[in-house]
């Protein structure tokens, strides 16, 4: 019972913040609404007995990534979003896709129930997959470095490549010379 009330409250905040993010014309306000939304998702993870995932969600998304968003918006002074969209076909397409996604969610929802699976509305404690160690750092690590070792390592290499790319892009300004080298050659 208490679980449902908490879920309802957090879900309400999540929806309001998502709508707020879409409707606000100030980029900083939109980014802050998104932060609230990401924290709500972390709270959902907590409700599903996955504290590890919840903390990583807050650290990585609400913390690191959104701070960089804010940083860039502030540095560029791009707070005001122009309301006139260049892509006129975007709005109708978005509405169609949203309807398809809601339909798919409902289909999945009732399919699970019809095929005799656990009701999506059942309390989390009735799920047979909920064991002592469910969602603990140890369990997550075992899955990441066991069943999903290859995708995990590939993601690591991909991130490394992106990082090196970013460094090279910033260094290549003014004919591949760094600031110190340029200063030295000027002298």
């Amino acid at each position, binding site marked *: 019972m208490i679980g449902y009330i908490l879920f309802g409250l957090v879900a309400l905040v999540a929806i309001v913040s998502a709508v707020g993010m879409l409707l606000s014309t100030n980029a*900083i306000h939109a980014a802050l609404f998104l*932060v609230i939304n990401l924290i709500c998702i972390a709270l959902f993870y907590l409700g599903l007995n996955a504290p*590890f995932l919840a903390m990583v969600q*807050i650290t990585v998304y*609400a*913390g*690191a990534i959104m*701070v960089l968003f804010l940083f860039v918006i502030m540095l560029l002074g791009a707070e005001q979003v122009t309301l006139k969209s260049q892509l006129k076909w975007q709005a109708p397409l978005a509405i169609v896709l949203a309807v398809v996604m809601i339909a798919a969610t409902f289909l999945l929802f009732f399919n699970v129930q019809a095929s005799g699976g656990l009701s999506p509305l059942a309390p989390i404690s009735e799920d047979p997959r909920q064991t002592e160690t469910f969602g603990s750092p140890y369990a997550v690590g075992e899955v990441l470095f066991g069943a999903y070792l290859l995708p995990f390592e590939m993601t690591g290499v991909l991130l490394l490549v992106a990082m090196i790319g970013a460094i090279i892009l910033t260094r290549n300004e003014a004919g591949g010379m760094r600031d110190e080298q340029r200063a030295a050659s000027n002298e």
Partner: protein
Amino acid sequence: MIDFLTLTIEAAIKAALMILSLLTGFAYTTLLERRFIARIQQRVGPNRAGPWGLLQPAADGIKVIFKEDIIPNGADKVIFTLAPALTAIPALIILAVVPLGGDVNVFGYRTSLALTSTNVGVLYILAVTSISVYGITLAGWSSANKYAMLGGLRSTAQMISYELAMGLSILAPVMVVGSMSLADIIDAQKNVWLVVYQPIAGLIFIITMYAETNRAPFDLPEAEQELTAGFHTEYSGMKFAAFYMAEYMKMIGVSVIAATLFFGGYRLFGLENLLGGWMGPVILIGKVMLSLLLFVWIRATLPRFRYDRLMDFGWKVLLPIALANAAITAVLVVLDPWWYRLI
């Protein structure tokens, strides 16, 4: 249902006590800082309000409450008002997962001196520190003042840069103990403090904790010679006080965390079991006091970093050392050589 009620009431009482002690701690840390700096500079310091100036924090509080609350014309009013709260809240909640003592009896009711114990305690601390960047950044942006803006941007860049080295230095004790629960980490230090196993990680954590709290020598976000008062230039009254409150509570918070991760937490050679377990928090307070004195001492003696050197130091010195230390620790934990267990 009854279980749920008792648990909720117990947690609420503990949370209220923790917030109360943090606020008291903040008030008297300001006095400690002013008196101690005065000693170092051969002055007397505030000594008029009450015996030894002990009522000075209360006098400051009353004064600040009656100050005019000014919101600049061009400011983003909502965010300008929210920013002090966003700065203070992470400082208040960061200690929720840290055990402040062992089990004690309160009127025959056995309870532990920790608000909650979770198996991801270390990650919770990292999550809260990563959120705490927002308050100062938004304060700088919403003030519509170029000095405040520069202070906010400096603070963001500095906190992001030093968070990496801090996270890596926390990783080392987690690997040695093999648990992310802070209770487990304290229990592992019954005989030997982790700083003996991990001196480099301990040193890096202590350096980064000065940067994360924006304290000297890393107090560039409020460098008065260049930025007036940095991110809180436009703030007055209680909002201004909230930033100070957050800064001092963060100092207490990181001191408790440093003591927990590297210096045995509330444990001190079994002394923590005296007085029915109530000696634990006293020992922890003693360790925190020493750390706060170090904070003040460093502020009084070290000059401020130059901004580019601050960035170079974070990215080119601290981060590689912390990374190498984490890698070496990982190898040592797996190989488990006899001389590493002996220390």
